[in-house]
Protein backbone atom coordinates (compact mmCIF):
# COMPACT_ATOMS: atom_id res chain seq x y z
CA UNK A 1 0.00 0.00 0.00
CA UNK A 2 1.30 3.45 -0.91
CA UNK A 3 0.28 6.37 1.27
CA UNK A 4 0.84 10.10 0.89
CA UNK A 5 0.94 12.25 4.00
CA UNK A 6 0.72 16.02 4.39
CA UNK A 7 2.21 17.66 7.47
CA UNK A 8 1.35 21.24 8.35
CA UNK A 9 1.08 21.85 12.08
CA UNK A 10 3.50 24.74 12.45
CA UNK A 11 6.35 26.30 10.46
CA UNK A 12 6.90 23.35 8.10
CA UNK A 13 4.78 22.07 5.28
CA UNK A 14 5.79 18.60 4.18
CA UNK A 15 4.67 15.92 1.79
CA UNK A 16 5.88 12.37 2.21
CA UNK A 17 5.15 9.17 0.33
CA UNK A 18 5.63 5.84 2.08
CA UNK A 19 5.18 2.20 1.34
CA UNK A 20 4.55 -0.62 3.77
CA UNK A 21 7.20 -3.32 3.48
CA UNK A 22 6.37 -6.23 5.80
CA UNK A 23 5.29 -3.98 8.65
CA UNK A 24 8.21 -1.56 8.25
CA UNK A 25 7.98 1.89 6.75
CA UNK A 26 9.85 2.54 3.54
CA UNK A 27 10.08 6.25 2.85
CA UNK A 28 9.83 6.79 -0.91
CA UNK A 29 10.06 10.56 -0.69
CA UNK A 30 9.82 13.24 1.95
CA UNK A 31 9.87 16.89 0.93
CA UNK A 32 9.69 19.78 3.38
CA UNK A 33 9.50 23.56 3.02
CA UNK A 34 10.00 25.68 6.09
CA UNK A 35 8.63 29.12 6.71
CA UNK A 36 11.24 31.60 7.93
CA UNK A 37 9.78 34.62 9.69
CA UNK A 38 11.50 37.89 8.83
CA UNK A 39 11.65 38.70 12.51
CA UNK A 40 10.30 37.23 15.72
CA UNK A 41 8.62 33.86 15.94
CA UNK A 42 6.05 32.07 13.79
CA UNK A 43 3.17 34.26 12.62
CA UNK A 44 0.38 31.68 12.14
CA UNK A 45 -1.33 33.38 9.20
CA UNK A 46 1.91 34.06 7.36
CA UNK A 47 3.06 30.51 7.96
CA UNK A 48 -0.25 29.30 6.48
CA UNK A 49 0.21 31.60 3.46
CA UNK A 50 3.67 30.13 2.99
CA UNK A 51 2.21 26.61 3.13
CA UNK A 52 -0.53 27.48 0.62
CA UNK A 53 2.08 28.89 -1.73
CA UNK A 54 4.22 25.76 -1.70
CA UNK A 55 1.83 22.84 -1.24
CA UNK A 56 1.00 22.27 -4.91
CA UNK A 57 4.61 22.10 -6.08
CA UNK A 58 5.59 20.05 -3.02
CA UNK A 59 2.89 17.51 -3.88
CA UNK A 60 4.07 17.03 -7.46
CA UNK A 61 7.77 17.07 -6.45
CA UNK A 62 7.25 14.51 -3.74
CA UNK A 63 5.18 12.17 -5.87
CA UNK A 64 7.70 12.43 -8.68
CA UNK A 65 10.64 11.85 -6.31
CA UNK A 66 8.86 8.76 -4.97
CA UNK A 67 8.85 7.37 -8.48
CA UNK A 68 5.11 6.77 -8.44
CA UNK A 69 2.12 8.13 -10.25
CA UNK A 70 -0.68 10.01 -8.47
CA UNK A 71 -2.98 7.17 -9.54
CA UNK A 72 -0.90 4.67 -7.56
CA UNK A 73 -1.52 6.42 -4.26
CA UNK A 74 -3.92 4.34 -2.14
CA UNK A 75 -4.47 6.68 0.80
CA UNK A 76 -4.08 10.35 1.70
CA UNK A 77 -3.41 11.34 5.30
CA UNK A 78 -2.83 14.69 6.97
CA UNK A 79 -1.91 16.21 10.32
CA UNK A 80 -5.26 16.87 11.97
CA UNK A 81 -3.70 18.43 15.07
CA UNK A 82 -2.39 19.65 17.40
CA UNK A 83 -0.98 22.82 15.94
CA UNK A 84 -1.62 26.30 14.66
CA UNK A 85 -5.12 26.64 13.23
CA UNK A 86 -4.35 28.41 9.93
CA UNK A 87 -1.49 25.99 9.15
CA UNK A 88 -3.59 22.93 10.00
CA UNK A 89 -6.45 24.17 7.83
CA UNK A 90 -4.16 24.74 4.86
CA UNK A 91 -2.72 21.23 5.02
CA UNK A 92 -6.17 19.69 5.62
CA UNK A 93 -7.67 21.54 2.68
CA UNK A 94 -4.92 20.28 0.38
CA UNK A 95 -5.38 16.74 1.67
CA UNK A 96 -9.16 16.80 1.15
CA UNK A 97 -8.80 18.20 -2.35
CA UNK A 98 -6.25 15.55 -3.26
CA UNK A 99 -8.23 12.65 -1.78
CA UNK A 100 -11.42 13.81 -3.52
CA UNK A 101 -9.79 14.27 -6.89
CA UNK A 102 -7.96 10.92 -6.70
CA UNK A 103 -11.10 9.30 -5.25
CA UNK A 104 -8.99 7.76 -2.50
CA UNK A 105 -9.68 7.49 1.25
CA UNK A 106 -8.66 10.30 3.61
CA UNK A 107 -7.40 9.99 7.19
CA UNK A 108 -6.49 12.71 9.68
CA UNK A 109 -3.82 11.75 12.20
CA UNK A 110 -2.37 13.02 15.45
CA UNK A 111 0.95 14.73 14.86
CA UNK A 112 2.51 13.69 18.21
CA UNK A 113 1.59 10.03 17.77
CA UNK A 114 3.09 10.20 14.26
CA UNK A 115 6.45 11.20 15.77
CA UNK A 116 6.39 8.04 17.84
CA UNK A 117 5.15 5.69 15.15
CA UNK A 118 7.73 6.80 12.59
CA UNK A 119 10.39 5.75 15.09
CA UNK A 120 8.83 2.32 15.43
CA UNK A 121 8.34 2.12 11.68
CA UNK A 122 11.78 3.17 10.46
CA UNK A 123 14.29 2.39 13.22
CA UNK A 124 15.27 -1.24 13.43
CA UNK A 125 14.74 -2.77 16.88
CA UNK A 126 12.51 0.03 18.13
CA UNK A 127 9.34 -1.73 19.30
CA UNK A 128 7.94 -0.34 22.52
CA UNK A 129 9.76 2.88 23.38
CA UNK A 130 9.27 5.73 25.75
CA UNK A 131 9.34 8.73 23.41
CA UNK A 132 10.93 11.98 24.47
CA UNK A 133 9.26 14.33 22.03
CA UNK A 134 10.99 17.68 22.00
CA UNK A 135 10.09 20.41 19.55
CA UNK A 136 9.23 24.08 19.53
CA UNK A 137 5.68 23.70 20.76
CA UNK A 138 5.76 20.25 22.26
CA UNK A 139 7.63 18.66 25.10
CA UNK A 140 6.10 15.36 26.09
CA UNK A 141 7.18 12.00 27.42
CA UNK A 142 4.91 9.48 25.73
CA UNK A 143 4.57 5.73 26.06
CA UNK A 144 2.04 3.06 25.22
CA UNK A 145 -0.05 1.92 28.16
CA UNK A 146 -3.53 0.43 28.42
CA UNK A 147 -4.52 0.90 24.78
CA UNK A 148 -3.36 4.47 24.26
CA UNK A 149 -0.28 6.57 23.92
CA UNK A 150 -0.24 8.25 27.27
CA UNK A 151 1.55 11.38 28.24
CA UNK A 152 3.55 10.58 31.35
CA UNK A 153 5.19 13.94 31.58
CA UNK A 154 4.97 17.20 29.71
CA UNK A 155 5.79 20.84 29.95
CA UNK A 156 3.55 22.90 32.18
CA UNK A 157 4.32 26.10 30.28
CA UNK A 158 6.34 26.38 27.05
CA UNK A 159 7.97 23.71 24.89
CA UNK A 160 11.74 23.31 25.19
CA UNK A 161 12.28 24.55 21.63
CA UNK A 162 10.16 27.59 22.35
CA UNK A 163 12.15 28.22 25.52
CA UNK A 164 15.41 28.15 23.54
CA UNK A 165 13.91 30.32 20.79
CA UNK A 166 12.65 32.92 23.25
CA UNK A 167 16.05 33.06 24.87
CA UNK A 168 17.81 33.34 21.51
CA UNK A 169 15.42 36.02 20.30
CA UNK A 170 16.44 38.25 23.21
CA UNK A 171 19.97 37.96 21.87
CA UNK A 172 18.94 38.48 18.26
CA UNK A 173 20.00 35.02 17.12
CA UNK A 174 17.20 34.58 14.54
CA UNK A 175 14.76 31.68 14.26
CA UNK A 176 15.13 28.84 15.10
CA UNK A 177 17.87 29.49 17.65
CA UNK A 178 18.58 25.96 18.89
CA UNK A 179 21.57 25.28 16.63
CA UNK A 180 23.20 28.62 17.51
CA UNK A 181 22.65 28.10 21.23
CA UNK A 182 24.20 24.66 20.83
CA UNK A 183 27.31 26.22 19.23
CA UNK A 184 27.67 28.77 22.03
CA UNK A 185 27.03 26.12 24.68
CA UNK A 186 29.84 23.95 23.34
CA UNK A 187 32.26 26.76 24.25
CA UNK A 188 30.87 27.26 27.76
CA UNK A 189 33.15 26.50 30.68
CA UNK A 190 31.45 27.77 33.82
CA UNK A 191 28.12 26.49 35.09
CA UNK A 192 25.82 29.25 36.31
CA UNK A 193 23.17 27.93 38.69
CA UNK A 194 19.64 27.93 37.25
CA UNK A 195 16.36 26.74 38.76
CA UNK A 196 15.71 23.04 38.25
CA UNK A 197 11.99 22.63 37.82
CA UNK A 198 10.48 19.16 37.83
CA UNK A 199 7.04 18.32 39.22
CA UNK A 200 6.49 14.60 39.22
CA UNK A 201 7.21 13.84 35.59
CA UNK A 202 6.19 17.30 34.40
CA UNK A 203 8.53 20.16 33.65
CA UNK A 204 8.46 23.94 33.65
CA UNK A 205 10.87 26.12 31.67
CA UNK A 206 9.66 29.68 32.07
CA UNK A 207 11.47 30.35 35.35
CA UNK A 208 14.73 29.04 33.91
CA UNK A 209 14.29 31.28 30.89
CA UNK A 210 13.85 34.36 33.09
CA UNK A 211 16.90 33.43 35.17
CA UNK A 212 19.03 32.83 32.06
CA UNK A 213 17.98 36.17 30.61
CA UNK A 214 18.93 37.84 33.89
CA UNK A 215 22.46 36.39 33.58
CA UNK A 216 22.75 37.88 30.11
CA UNK A 217 21.69 41.28 31.44
CA UNK A 218 24.28 40.98 34.19
CA UNK A 219 26.89 40.63 31.47
CA UNK A 220 27.79 36.97 32.03
CA UNK A 221 29.58 35.24 29.15
CA UNK A 222 27.00 34.19 26.59
CA UNK A 223 28.76 30.84 26.11
CA UNK A 224 28.37 30.09 29.82
CA UNK A 225 24.71 31.08 29.90
CA UNK A 226 23.93 28.90 26.87
CA UNK A 227 25.91 26.04 28.39
CA UNK A 228 24.06 26.35 31.70
CA UNK A 229 20.70 26.66 29.98
CA UNK A 230 21.27 23.51 27.91
CA UNK A 231 22.76 21.50 30.77
CA UNK A 232 19.89 22.35 33.12
CA UNK A 233 16.95 21.92 30.77
CA UNK A 234 18.37 18.78 29.13
CA UNK A 235 19.16 17.21 32.52
CA UNK A 236 15.51 17.81 33.43
CA UNK A 237 14.31 16.26 30.16
CA UNK A 238 16.57 13.25 30.63
CA UNK A 239 15.47 12.85 34.23
CA UNK A 240 11.75 12.82 33.47
CA UNK A 241 12.34 10.40 30.60
CA UNK A 242 14.19 8.08 32.95
CA UNK A 243 11.40 8.41 35.49
CA UNK A 244 8.86 7.43 32.86
CA UNK A 245 11.00 4.46 31.86
CA UNK A 246 11.25 3.30 35.47
CA UNK A 247 7.53 3.86 35.96
CA UNK A 248 6.42 2.03 32.81
CA UNK A 249 9.23 -0.55 33.05
CA UNK A 250 10.15 -0.05 29.41
CA UNK A 251 13.59 -0.81 28.04
CA UNK A 252 13.71 1.48 25.03
CA UNK A 253 13.92 5.21 24.60
CA UNK A 254 13.23 7.08 21.39
CA UNK A 255 13.90 10.72 20.57
CA UNK A 256 11.67 12.76 18.32
CA UNK A 257 11.04 16.37 17.28
CA UNK A 258 13.32 19.14 16.08
CA UNK A 259 15.27 19.55 19.34
CA UNK A 260 16.29 15.88 19.04
CA UNK A 261 18.86 17.18 16.54
CA UNK A 262 20.81 18.65 19.45
CA UNK A 263 23.93 16.54 19.97
CA UNK A 264 24.24 17.25 23.67
CA UNK A 265 20.65 16.16 24.33
CA UNK A 266 21.23 12.97 22.34
CA UNK A 267 24.39 12.28 24.28
CA UNK A 268 22.65 12.74 27.63
CA UNK A 269 19.67 10.54 26.80
CA UNK A 270 21.97 7.92 25.31
CA UNK A 271 24.13 7.88 28.46
CA UNK A 272 21.03 7.54 30.62
CA UNK A 273 19.80 4.63 28.50
CA UNK A 274 23.15 2.88 28.59
CA UNK A 275 23.42 3.21 32.36
CA UNK A 276 20.06 1.57 32.87
CA UNK A 277 20.67 -1.14 30.30
CA UNK A 278 18.06 0.24 27.92
CA UNK A 279 18.27 0.78 24.18
CA UNK A 280 18.49 4.23 22.65
CA UNK A 281 16.99 5.14 19.29
CA UNK A 282 16.81 8.26 17.22
CA UNK A 283 15.27 8.32 13.75
CA UNK A 284 17.18 9.86 10.84
CA UNK A 285 16.88 13.63 10.79
CA UNK A 286 14.44 13.83 7.86
CA UNK A 287 11.80 11.81 9.71
CA UNK A 288 12.67 13.20 13.17
CA UNK A 289 11.66 16.79 12.37
CA UNK A 290 8.09 17.65 11.29
CA UNK A 291 7.59 15.80 8.01
CA UNK A 292 4.99 14.25 5.74
CA UNK A 293 6.36 10.70 5.81
CA UNK A 294 5.46 10.21 9.47
CA UNK A 295 1.93 11.45 8.77
CA UNK A 296 1.69 9.03 5.84
CA UNK A 297 2.94 6.12 7.93
CA UNK A 298 0.50 6.71 10.80
CA UNK A 299 -2.31 7.11 8.25
CA UNK A 300 -1.37 3.73 6.84
CA UNK A 301 -1.28 2.06 10.28
CA UNK A 302 -4.72 3.41 11.14
CA UNK A 303 -6.25 2.55 7.79
CA UNK A 304 -4.84 -0.96 7.92
CA UNK A 305 -6.36 -1.52 11.36
CA UNK A 306 -9.78 -0.55 10.05
CA UNK A 307 -10.04 3.17 10.78
CA UNK A 308 -12.09 5.10 8.21
CA UNK A 309 -12.75 8.81 8.19
CA UNK A 310 -15.70 10.55 6.61
CA UNK A 311 -15.02 13.88 4.97
CA UNK A 312 -17.20 15.66 7.51
CA UNK A 313 -15.08 14.21 10.34
CA UNK A 314 -11.89 15.60 8.87
CA UNK A 315 -12.13 18.94 10.68
CA UNK A 316 -8.84 19.97 12.22
CA UNK A 317 -8.38 19.99 15.98
CA UNK A 318 -5.86 22.49 17.32
CA UNK A 319 -6.04 20.81 20.71
CA UNK A 320 -5.77 17.22 19.57
CA UNK A 321 -4.12 15.57 22.54
CA UNK A 322 -1.90 12.51 22.25
CA UNK A 323 -4.07 10.49 24.61
CA UNK A 324 -7.26 11.12 22.62
CA UNK A 325 -6.21 8.60 19.97
CA UNK A 326 -7.54 5.05 20.29
CA UNK A 327 -4.51 2.99 19.36
CA UNK A 328 -6.17 0.10 17.56
CA UNK A 329 -3.10 -0.95 15.58
CA UNK A 330 -1.20 -2.19 18.63
CA UNK A 331 -1.94 -4.92 21.18
Amino acid sequence: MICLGIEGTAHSIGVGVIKNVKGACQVLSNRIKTYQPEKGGIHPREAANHHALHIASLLSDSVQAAGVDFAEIDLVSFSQGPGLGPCLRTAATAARALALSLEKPLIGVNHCVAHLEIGRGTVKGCKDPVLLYVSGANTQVIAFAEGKYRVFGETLDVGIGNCLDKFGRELGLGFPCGPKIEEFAAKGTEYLALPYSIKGMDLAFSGILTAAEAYVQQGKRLEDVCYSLQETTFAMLTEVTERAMAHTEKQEVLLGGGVASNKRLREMVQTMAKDRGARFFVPSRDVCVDNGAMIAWLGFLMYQSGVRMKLEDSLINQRFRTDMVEVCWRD
Partner: protein
Amino acid sequence: MTEKILYLGAEAEIRLSEYMGKKVVQKQRVHKAYRIKEIDHQLISYRTKEEAKLISAARSHGVSVPLLYDVDLTKGCITMEYLKGNRVKDMLNGLKESERRRICLKIGESIARLHDHDLIHGDLTTSNMIYWNDRIYFIDFGLGSQNIEVEAKGVDLHVLMEAFESTHSKYPRCFEVVLEGYTKHLQGDASGVVEKIKEIVQRGRYR
Protein backbone atom coordinates in the same frame (compact mmCIF):
# COMPACT_ATOMS: atom_id res chain seq x y z
CA MET B 1 25.71 -7.60 55.99
CA THR B 2 23.99 -8.81 52.87
CA GLU B 3 22.37 -6.19 50.73
CA LYS B 4 19.70 -6.84 48.21
CA ILE B 5 18.43 -4.35 45.67
CA LEU B 6 14.66 -4.16 46.12
CA TYR B 7 14.02 -1.68 43.37
CA LEU B 8 16.04 0.27 40.89
CA GLY B 9 14.33 3.61 40.59
CA ALA B 10 15.08 6.44 38.23
CA GLU B 11 17.27 8.28 40.69
CA ALA B 12 18.00 5.88 43.51
CA GLU B 13 18.65 2.29 44.42
CA ILE B 14 16.38 0.93 47.09
CA ARG B 15 18.29 -1.69 49.04
CA LEU B 16 17.24 -4.08 51.73
CA SER B 17 19.80 -3.97 54.49
CA GLU B 18 20.34 -4.25 58.23
CA TYR B 19 20.86 -1.49 60.74
CA MET B 20 21.48 -2.18 64.43
CA GLY B 21 19.90 -5.59 64.08
CA LYS B 22 16.83 -4.29 62.28
CA LYS B 23 15.71 -5.00 58.78
CA VAL B 24 15.88 -1.65 56.99
CA VAL B 25 15.57 -0.03 53.60
CA GLN B 26 18.33 2.17 52.28
CA LYS B 27 17.60 4.71 49.64
CA GLN B 28 20.85 5.44 47.90
CA ARG B 29 20.74 8.23 45.34
CA VAL B 30 23.05 7.43 42.47
CA HIS B 31 25.26 9.73 40.47
CA LYS B 32 24.07 10.27 36.93
CA ALA B 33 26.75 10.31 34.28
CA TYR B 34 24.48 12.20 31.88
CA ARG B 35 24.45 15.41 33.90
CA ILE B 36 27.37 17.65 34.85
CA LYS B 37 28.89 17.32 38.33
CA GLU B 38 27.59 20.69 39.49
CA ILE B 39 23.97 19.71 38.87
CA ASP B 40 24.46 16.13 40.01
CA HIS B 41 25.96 16.99 43.42
CA GLN B 42 23.49 19.76 44.06
CA LEU B 43 20.48 17.57 43.26
CA ILE B 44 21.68 14.57 45.25
CA SER B 45 22.53 16.41 48.43
CA TYR B 46 19.58 18.81 48.28
CA ARG B 47 17.02 16.10 47.62
CA THR B 48 18.43 13.78 50.28
CA LYS B 49 18.26 16.54 52.86
CA GLU B 50 14.81 17.75 51.82
CA GLU B 51 13.46 14.23 51.75
CA ALA B 52 14.68 13.48 55.26
CA LYS B 53 13.28 16.76 56.54
CA LEU B 54 9.89 16.13 54.97
CA ILE B 55 9.65 12.54 56.19
CA SER B 56 10.25 13.61 59.77
CA ALA B 57 7.92 16.59 59.45
CA ALA B 58 5.19 14.34 58.06
CA ARG B 59 5.66 11.90 60.89
CA SER B 60 5.43 14.60 63.51
CA HIS B 61 2.04 15.57 62.06
CA GLY B 62 0.71 12.04 62.21
CA VAL B 63 1.11 11.10 58.54
CA SER B 64 2.23 7.52 58.04
CA VAL B 65 5.78 7.42 56.70
CA PRO B 66 8.71 5.10 57.31
CA LEU B 67 10.76 5.75 60.44
CA LEU B 68 14.14 7.37 59.74
CA TYR B 69 17.27 5.74 61.17
CA ASP B 70 20.09 7.57 59.46
CA VAL B 71 20.76 10.28 56.88
CA ASP B 72 24.12 10.54 55.12
CA LEU B 73 24.29 13.66 52.98
CA THR B 74 27.73 13.04 51.51
CA LYS B 75 26.73 9.62 50.29
CA GLY B 76 23.18 10.69 49.52
CA CYS B 77 21.77 7.80 51.54
CA ILE B 78 18.75 7.56 53.81
CA THR B 79 18.30 4.55 56.06
CA MET B 80 14.70 3.93 57.04
CA GLU B 81 12.22 1.43 58.36
CA TYR B 82 11.30 -1.52 56.17
CA LEU B 83 7.58 -1.48 55.49
CA LYS B 84 5.82 -4.71 54.67
CA GLY B 85 2.55 -4.27 52.83
CA ASN B 86 1.87 -3.63 49.15
CA ARG B 87 2.32 -0.76 46.78
CA VAL B 88 -1.10 0.78 46.13
CA LYS B 89 -0.25 0.65 42.41
CA ASP B 90 -0.11 -3.14 42.52
CA MET B 91 -3.22 -3.77 44.58
CA LEU B 92 -5.73 -1.08 43.62
CA ASN B 93 -6.94 -2.50 40.29
CA GLY B 94 -7.57 -5.92 41.84
CA LEU B 95 -9.85 -4.73 44.64
CA LYS B 96 -13.61 -4.90 44.97
CA GLU B 97 -15.33 -1.62 44.09
CA SER B 98 -16.26 -0.82 47.70
CA GLU B 99 -12.79 -1.60 48.96
CA ARG B 100 -11.18 0.47 46.20
CA ARG B 101 -13.38 3.36 47.25
CA ARG B 102 -12.39 2.96 50.87
CA ILE B 103 -8.69 2.99 49.99
CA CYS B 104 -9.09 6.04 47.74
CA LEU B 105 -10.88 7.94 50.51
CA LYS B 106 -8.02 7.03 52.82
CA ILE B 107 -5.49 8.29 50.27
CA GLY B 108 -7.38 11.60 50.12
CA GLU B 109 -7.48 11.85 53.89
CA SER B 110 -3.74 11.21 54.16
CA ILE B 111 -2.91 13.81 51.52
CA ALA B 112 -5.15 16.30 53.33
CA ARG B 113 -3.12 15.79 56.47
CA LEU B 114 0.11 16.45 54.56
CA HIS B 115 -1.29 19.56 52.92
CA ASP B 116 -2.77 20.94 56.13
CA HIS B 117 0.81 21.18 57.33
CA ASP B 118 2.03 22.64 54.04
CA LEU B 119 3.93 19.49 53.15
CA ILE B 120 4.05 18.88 49.42
CA HIS B 121 4.95 15.35 48.39
CA GLY B 122 6.02 16.30 44.87
CA ASP B 123 5.56 12.90 43.26
CA LEU B 124 2.20 11.55 44.37
CA THR B 125 1.69 8.33 42.45
CA THR B 126 0.27 5.03 43.58
CA SER B 127 3.80 3.57 43.33
CA ASN B 128 4.79 5.88 46.14
CA MET B 129 2.10 4.71 48.53
CA ILE B 130 2.30 1.54 50.57
CA TYR B 131 -0.76 0.01 52.14
CA TRP B 132 0.03 -1.62 55.45
CA ASN B 133 -1.80 -2.02 58.75
CA ASP B 134 -4.80 -0.41 57.09
CA ARG B 135 -2.85 2.81 56.61
CA ILE B 136 -1.47 4.60 53.59
CA TYR B 137 2.27 5.12 54.00
CA PHE B 138 3.90 7.70 51.79
CA ILE B 139 7.37 7.01 50.51
CA ASP B 140 9.74 8.89 48.20
CA PHE B 141 9.57 12.54 49.14
CA GLY B 142 12.48 13.20 46.83
CA LEU B 143 10.70 15.92 44.88
CA GLY B 144 8.85 17.29 47.88
CA SER B 145 8.90 20.68 49.48
CA GLN B 146 7.31 22.79 52.17
CA ASN B 147 5.01 25.29 50.61
CA ILE B 148 2.03 27.22 51.86
CA GLU B 149 0.65 28.10 48.43
CA VAL B 150 -2.54 26.67 46.98
CA GLU B 151 -0.70 26.34 43.66
CA ALA B 152 1.76 23.83 45.15
CA LYS B 153 -1.07 21.74 46.62
CA GLY B 154 -2.93 21.85 43.33
CA VAL B 155 0.14 20.73 41.38
CA ASP B 156 0.71 17.95 43.92
CA LEU B 157 -2.79 16.56 43.33
CA HIS B 158 -2.58 17.16 39.59
CA VAL B 159 0.45 14.84 39.46
CA LEU B 160 -1.67 12.20 41.22
CA MET B 161 -4.55 12.76 38.81
CA GLU B 162 -2.23 12.07 35.88
CA ALA B 163 -0.88 8.97 37.62
CA PHE B 164 -4.42 7.65 38.04
CA GLU B 165 -5.21 8.39 34.39
CA SER B 166 -2.19 6.45 33.17
CA THR B 167 -2.06 3.58 35.66
CA HIS B 168 -5.65 3.03 36.76
CA SER B 169 -7.50 4.18 33.67
CA LYS B 170 -10.00 1.34 34.02
CA TYR B 171 -11.32 3.01 37.14
CA PRO B 172 -11.72 6.64 36.11
CA ARG B 173 -13.61 7.59 39.28
CA CYS B 174 -10.71 6.84 41.62
CA PHE B 175 -9.29 10.32 41.59
CA GLU B 176 -12.69 11.88 42.31
CA VAL B 177 -12.98 9.65 45.35
CA VAL B 178 -9.51 10.70 46.47
CA LEU B 179 -10.65 14.31 46.19
CA GLU B 180 -13.78 13.48 48.15
CA GLY B 181 -11.66 12.13 51.02
CA TYR B 182 -9.33 15.10 50.68
CA THR B 183 -12.13 17.66 50.76
CA LYS B 184 -13.77 16.01 53.74
CA HIS B 185 -10.64 16.00 55.86
CA LEU B 186 -8.75 19.10 54.81
CA GLN B 187 -9.01 21.79 57.44
CA GLY B 188 -7.91 24.44 54.99
CA ASP B 189 -9.80 25.64 51.92
CA ALA B 190 -10.34 22.45 49.91
CA SER B 191 -12.53 24.05 47.27
CA GLY B 192 -9.71 26.49 46.50
CA VAL B 193 -7.38 23.56 45.86
CA VAL B 194 -9.95 21.72 43.72
CA GLU B 195 -10.46 24.88 41.64
CA LYS B 196 -6.71 25.19 41.30
CA ILE B 197 -6.47 21.64 39.92
CA LYS B 198 -9.00 22.54 37.23
CA GLU B 199 -7.02 25.65 36.41
CA ILE B 200 -3.80 23.61 36.12
CA VAL B 201 -5.51 21.14 33.78
CA GLN B 202 -6.66 24.04 31.60
CA ARG B 203 -3.16 25.43 31.58
CA GLY B 204 -1.85 22.19 30.07
CA ARG B 205 -1.20 22.16 26.35
CA TYR B 206 -4.17 21.49 24.10
CA ARG B 207 -6.76 21.45 26.89
